[in-house]
């Protein structure tokens, strides 16, 4: 039985050894905070990827040069043509397909020059834009025949992001020496690269880059969602035939977004798993530390244990007192760790999204932010689960010392000095 005196007894014993209790708690809560931070960001990312799949990406297939990821089209040795688009769109299970040119662009506004990515698409088959899963923030999407017009990412709207002053609809912007009129701005996608892109229609790319071959960097296709793997195989076979390549020696890769996101998820699992594993090891180390604290505590209080038993405390009551003490240390560590992790993750998420700027020792430090999609989430079970985990860590590491305490021989204990 744990009564109010024994709880107070345990609490005062913890308070009595402030320094040692603090170090014990510290070692546990750092591990707990680390786990909290990584799991909250991980859950946020999983949620984001899930939203992508449930949004516009679930039925999409992408063809891109083999071995590239994220920046297709910059490899000049690889080219996808209108013929390839035709092959893809005719493959079984594919509804429609479109190519996209991906270039580096020099953009200029009010004498400020920046280098960004330019992406082109066919406004009559705007499935590439479905992948972003966002709407236009201001103005409109590009339309067929929009030569000399440009759609901009969200960051162009904001002061001090791309240009010192944000742009407006119908402003002019120079792209590769061509002056283009802005027809719209997209909503924020949540990462700085996508939010800094400029978009033009496929038919206008040759005018902006008159000296380049301007082949497609990737092809995006919309497929039958229920038979997407079959559609991927069909596209592969079609392209292999039309490009006259042997199986296994293709210079292109065909993947559904679902697969891409899943393989990304697997990579994330490994990274998050690895970090959480390290944090768990630190928790195990702190459990050893807790056990050490409790062992010392039991030895120090040998005589008191004898007294408690002589006035009617049973073995299980003595066990309960010490177990409670260890569990309580874990509880405090869990609460602090979770709160600390929460604060750190929320702050981290805020900085990733909004950036930060500070002056330290006369030097400027800053980070532009824009990684809004890396937002941590804080479900209730993460708080509860980690606190319970911390309590268990404390209790388990305190179990053996508590057991030893409960087995203490009264006569020896009373004689102990």
């Amino acid at each position, binding site marked *: 039985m744990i009564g109010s005196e024994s709880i107070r*007894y345990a609490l005062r014993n913890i308070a*009595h050894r402030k320094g040692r209790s603090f170090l014990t708690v510290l070692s546990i809560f750092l591990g707990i905070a680390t786990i909290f931070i990584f799991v909250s960001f991980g859950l946020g990312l999983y949620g984001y990827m899930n939203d992508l799949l449930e949004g516009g990406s679930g039925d999409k297939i992408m063809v891109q040069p083999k071995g590239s990821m994220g920046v297709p089209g910059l490899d000049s040795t690889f080219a996808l043509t209108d013929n390839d688009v035709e092959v893809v769109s005719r493959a079984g299970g594919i509804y429609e397909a479109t190519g996209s040119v991906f270039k580096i662009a020099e953009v200029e506004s009010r004498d400020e020059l920046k280098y960004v990515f330019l992406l082109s698409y066919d406004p009559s088959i705007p499935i590439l834009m479905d992948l972003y899963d966002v709407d236009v923030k201001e103005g409109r999407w590009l339309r067929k025949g929009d030569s000399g017009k440009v759609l901009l990412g969200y960051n162009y709207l904001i002061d001090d992001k791309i240009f010192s002053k944000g742009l407006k609809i119908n402003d002019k912007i120079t792209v590769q020496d061509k002056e283009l009129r802005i027809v719209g701005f997209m909503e924020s996608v949540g990462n700085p690269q996508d939010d800094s892109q400029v978009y033009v229609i496929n038919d206008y790319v040759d005018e902006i880059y008159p000296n380049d071959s301007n082949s497609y960097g990737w092809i995006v296709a919309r497929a039958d969602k229920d038979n997407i793997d079959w559609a991927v195989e069909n596209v592969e076979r079609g392209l292999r035939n039309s490009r006259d390549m042997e199986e296994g020696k293709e210079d292109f890769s065909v993947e559904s977004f679902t697969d891409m996101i899943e393989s990304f998820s697997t990579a994330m699992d490994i990274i998050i798993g690895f970090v959480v594993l390290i944090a768990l090891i630190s928790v195990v180390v702190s459990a050893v530390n807790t056990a050490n604290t409790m062992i010392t505590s039991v030895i120090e209080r040998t005589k*008191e244990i004898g007294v*408690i038993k*002589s*006035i009617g405390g*049973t073995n299980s009551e003595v066990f309960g007192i010490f177990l409670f003490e260890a569990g309580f240390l874990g509880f405090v560590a869990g609460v602090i760790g979770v709160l600390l992790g929460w604060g750190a993750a929320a702050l981290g998420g805020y900085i990733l999204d909004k950036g930060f700027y500070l002056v330290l020792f006369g030097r400027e430090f800053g980070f532009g932010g824009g990684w809004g999609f890396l937002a941590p989430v804080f479900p209730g079970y993460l708080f509860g689960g980690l606190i319970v985990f911390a309590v268990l860590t404390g209790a388990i590491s305190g179990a053996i010392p508590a057991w030893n305490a409960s087995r203490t021989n009264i006569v020896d204990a009373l004689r102990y000095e």
Partner: protein
Amino acid sequence: MVTERKELIRLRNVSKFYEMGNSVVKALNEVNLKVYEGEFVAIMGPSGSGKSTAMNLVGSLDVPTHGSVFLDEIDISTLGESELAQIRGKKIGFIFQSFNLIANLTTIENVMLPMMFQGTGIDKRRKKAEELLKLVDLGNRGEHYPGELSGGQRQRVAIARSLANDPEVILADEPTGNLDTKTGAIVMEFLEKMNREGKTIIIVTHDPDLAEKYADVVYWLKDGILEKVTKREGKRFVDVTKKVKKAVKGNGVK
């Protein structure tokens, strides 16, 4: 006359041996002892006489190597650990030479602690503890920690604690050992007062004057052997060793 009184504790042919390397130390050898309700008993002996061992056995803190210990006619060797703890907590109140209060609990919490182990409710515990502290003239010291009290005061807190569960026996191990004569006398007067009110008191002491001043029966131990038992008859003590041996052995339980 002897048989009319209720028997509380009986040690029958009790021995306690300790192994020290290759040799066996006979801390207590074939000792017989019997304590009746309402008696004031002293276990007397110089250091090394086995009196502490005897106290541990009488208080059921320890079990004998040979022989039997009966508490309220129950052979304690038949009891499990938690039953023994319960009986100890309920029937016996301990007072130690070095007070043995718990430093991290206040005076009143120290007195409340034994009641907690008996499952007494918190309000009742507090009320009883307040009464007991008043009884030992420490009614205003409830919220103090033991470290803030003098030795005599601490021993009075220990007396209050020993009374918490209203035990039949108070077992005091050298209760005045760490106190000066004057405060020691105060503590002994409290014990004497409780004895007058019906409590059975057993003290363990090395001081024959203390034993004979307060006790009705004195068990004299030497080298682990019960040398003699003396009993107060009027103003003097008479040897009743044979009587006790006979009473212990001839009392039903074999």
